[in-house]
C-alpha cells in the first residue's frame, strides 16, 4: 500500500474517540471520526454509570476480550485521565455480600480478578467495610474491596478524547450518518453518508447501538445488538448522605446490579436497572415507574440511608448495546479487507476503551502491513475548560480580570459563567446539551428552567442564528417553532384574498 492510509471510525463514543486518539499518534494515518448526532458521545457513552471497573467481573473463559481488556483499560485510564484532564475519583469499589452464598461469590470474584491481573483486591469484613464506607448497609456481612476502580464522568471523557484527537489532526464529521459502505473487489473504499462520500481505506465500526446495522452494510452482520435499558436517579449536590466509594451488590449472571455512587461533580447517583428491549427499540430511553422503583429499592438495600426522594433532581436512562455472543466483537474481518469491528461494547466497554484502541491499532498494522511512524509533535495533553465553580475567590478575581466574561454568571446553581459557555462553543458545542456537557450549565437543581434560555441566547449570538432555532440536541429539538407571531402570521397568509 505505502503512503497514507485513510481510516474512518464510525461512532464518536468513548470507543471510537479512544481509537481516534491512539491512531492520531502516528504519521501516515488520515483519521476521520464520523458521528451521526450533532455532538460527540451522545449514544451509549453519555448515559451510563461512568465506572472504571477494576476487572474482576468478567470470566476469562466465557468472555475473554472483556476480561483481558477491562483490567488493561483500567491501567491505561490511570494515565489518560492525567494527560487529558478528565475529572475522576479513584475511590475504589465495594461489592457487598449479605449472606454466605454471596460471600462465596465474592471469593469467585476475587480469584477471577487475580486471574485477570487486577491488583490489590481484598475481601474485607463488616468492620473494615464500615471504615471504608460509613454509609454502607448494616446488613452487609462482607465485601470485595477493589481500590483500583474509579468513578469518571463519561461525557467529559469523550469530549476530552475528541478534543485531543482534533488537536492531533483527526477530522470530525458531525451530523453525518453512514448510509452505506462501498466495497470494491472485496475491499473497503469508502462511506456513503447523508452528506458526502468519504473515501477511505479502512472502516472501524464503533457504532454502538447500531453496530450490527453498520456490519450489515458491509455485507457482514454475523451478530445482533440488543438494547438493554438502564434507568438512573440523580440527587441534588447538597443531598446527604452520599457514599465515598462505588457500592455494588453481588452480581448476577445478567448484570452487575444497581449501583450507589457519587459522581465526579458530587451528586449521589443510583442505578442502573436492566431491562431488555426488543431489538427495534434502540431509541427508547424512557423512564418508567417500575424501573425507577427497582432502582430505588435495590439502592436502599446497599446503604444505611438514601437522601429523601424530594432531593432527586433528575432521572434518566441509557441503553447498553448487548451483543448476541456476550463478549466484545473486536476483530479484523477477513471477508472484507479493511473492515474492523469494535462493537458490542456493553459493560465494561467504557473501562476497556483505551485497551480496545491499542488492540485496533495492532490489527491495523497487521492488516495493512505497516509500521507507522510516531507523529512528531503529537500532543499528549489536553486541558479542560477552567471551571469557575472550582476556583477560590482569589483565583476567580484573577480570571475575571483576564477574561471579563467569567464575571457573568449564567447558571446560578452550578456557578457556570458566560466565559465558559463561550469557550464550550468555541470547542465545538452547537447545542444546549453540547454546552451542558462541557460546562455543567443546566445540570443543577433548576434543571435549566432559569438558565436554559440564557445559554440559548449565548448560542444564538455566538453562532449568529435566530434564537428559536437553537436546539437542545440537534435537528428536531429546536427550542421554539418560530418567533412569537409565527402561528398568527401563518393564519394571516392562509386566510384573506391576495392584496394588490
Amino acid at each position, binding site marked *: 500500500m505505502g503512503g497514507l492510509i485513510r481510516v474512518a471510525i464510525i461512532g464518536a463514543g468513548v470507543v471510537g474517540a479512544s481509537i481516534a486518539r491512539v491512531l492520531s499518534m502516528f504519521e501516515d494515518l488520515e483519521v476521520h471520526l464520523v458521528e451521526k448526532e450533532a455532538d460527540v458521545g451522545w449514544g451509549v457513552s453519555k448515559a451510563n454509570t461512568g465506572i472504571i471497573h477494576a476487572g474482576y467481573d468478567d470470566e476469562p473463559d466465557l468472555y475473554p476480550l472483556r476480561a483481558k481488556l477491562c483490567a488493561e483499560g483500567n491501567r491505561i485510564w490511570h494515565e489518560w485521565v492525567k494527560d487529558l484532564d478528565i475529572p475522576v475519583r479513584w475511590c475504589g469499589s465495594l461489592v457487598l455480600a449479605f449472606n454466605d452464598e454471596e460471600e462465596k461469590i465474592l471469593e469467585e470474584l476475587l480469584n477471577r480478578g487475580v486471574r485477570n491481573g487486577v491488583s490489590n483486591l481484598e475481601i474485607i469484613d463488616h468492620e473494615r467495610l464500615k471504615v471504608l464506607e460509613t454509609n454502607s448497609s448494616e446488613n452487609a456481612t462482607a465485601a470485595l474491596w477493589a481500590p483500583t476502580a474509579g468513578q469518571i464522568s463519561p461525557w467529559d471523557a469523550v469530549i476530552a478524547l475528541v478534543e485531543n484527537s482534533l488537536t492531533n489532526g483527526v477530522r470530525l464529521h458531525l451530523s453525518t450518518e453512514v448510509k452505506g459502505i462501498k466495497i470494491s473487489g472485496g475491499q473497503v473504499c469508502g462511506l456513503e453518508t447523508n452528506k458526502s462520500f468519504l473515501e477511505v481505506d479502512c472502516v472501524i465500526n464503533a457504532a454502538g447501538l447500531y453496530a450490527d446495522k453498520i456490519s450489515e452494510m458491509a455485507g457482514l452482520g454475523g451478530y445482533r445488538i440488543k438494547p438493554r435499558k438502564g434507568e438512573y436517579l440523580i440527587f441534588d449536590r447538597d443531598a446527604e448522605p452520599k457514599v465515598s466509594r462505588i457500592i455494588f451488590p453481588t452480581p448476577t449472571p445478567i448484570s452487575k446490579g444497581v449501583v450507589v455512587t457519587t459522581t465526579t461533580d458530587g451528586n449521589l447517583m443510583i442505578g442502573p436497572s436492566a431491562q431488555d428491549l426488543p431489538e427495534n427499540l434502540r431509541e427508547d430511553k424512557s423512564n418508567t415507574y417500575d424501573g425507577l422503583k427497582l432502582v430505588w429499592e435495590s439502592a436502599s438495600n446497599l446503604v444505611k440511608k438514601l437522601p429523601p426522594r424530594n432531593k432527586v433532581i433528575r432521572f434518566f436512562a441509557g441503553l447498553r448495546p448487548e451483543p448476541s455472543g456476550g463478549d466484545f466483537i473486536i476483530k479484523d474481518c477477513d471477508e472484507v479487507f479493511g473492515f474492523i469491528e469494535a462493537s458490542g461494547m456493553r459493560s465494561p466497554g467504557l473501562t476497556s476503551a483505551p485497551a480496545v484502541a491499542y488492540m485496533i491499532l495492532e490489527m491495523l498494522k497487521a492488516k495493512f502491513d505497516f509500521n507507522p511512524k510516531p507523529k512528531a509533535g503529537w500532543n499528549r495533553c489536553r486541558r479542560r475548560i477552567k471551571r469557575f465553580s472550582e476556583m477560590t475567590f482569589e483565583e476567580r478575581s484573577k480570571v475575571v480580570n483576564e477574561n471579563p466574561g467569567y464575571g457573568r454568571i449564567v447558571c446560578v446553581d452550578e456557578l457556570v459563567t458566560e466565559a465558559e459557555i463561550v469557550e464550550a462553543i468555541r470547542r465545538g458545542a452547537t447545542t444546549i446539551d453540547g454546552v451542558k456537557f462541557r460546562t455543567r450549565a443546566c445540570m443543577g437543581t433548576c434543571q435549566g428552567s432559569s438558565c436554559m434560555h440564557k445559554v440559548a441566547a449565548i448560542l444564538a449570538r455566538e453562532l449568529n442564528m435566530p434564537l428559536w432555532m437553537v436546539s437542545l440536541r440537534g435537528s428536531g429539538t429546536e427550542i421554539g417553532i418560530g*418567533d*412569537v*407571531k409565527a402561528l*398568527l*402570521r401563518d393564519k*394571516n397568509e392562509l386566510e384573506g384574498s391576495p392584496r394588490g
Partner: protein
Amino acid sequence: MALSADGSRILEFTCIVCPMGCRLRAILEGGEVRSVEGNRCPRGVIYAQNEIEPKRIIITVIKVSGGNLPVVSVKTSEPIPKEMIPEAMKTLSKTIVQAPIKIGQIIIKDFLGLKVNVVATRNVDPAQIG
C-alpha cells in the same frame, strides 16, 4: 340561558371582578339587563351588564425593531369586545414598532375603530451598537 316563567331570559355566569367569584343571575328583557342577583357588591351588577356584551383587555407583545429587546409588551387602554380578539391578535401580529419605546406610549390609536388605543407597558431602549 334559561326562560323564566314570565318569558324573560336568564343568563348565569361567574363574576370575575374580584377573587370572590360570585355566581350571578342576570335577568334579561328584550336583550337588556332588567336585574341582577347573586352579587355581593355593586360591581357585580356592572360586570353582568358587561357580560351581555363581554369585553376583554388584550395583553400581548408586539415586535420591535432596533431595540435592546425583540418585543415590547402592550395592552389595550380599554377592554374590547371579546369576539374581536382573534382579529385584534392577527392585526397585532403584523405590527412592528421602532425603538425607543416608553411605557404608556400609544402604539396604535383607535385600534380597529373601537376607540381604544394599544399602549406599550414596558420601556425598550435602542439596541446598543457593537
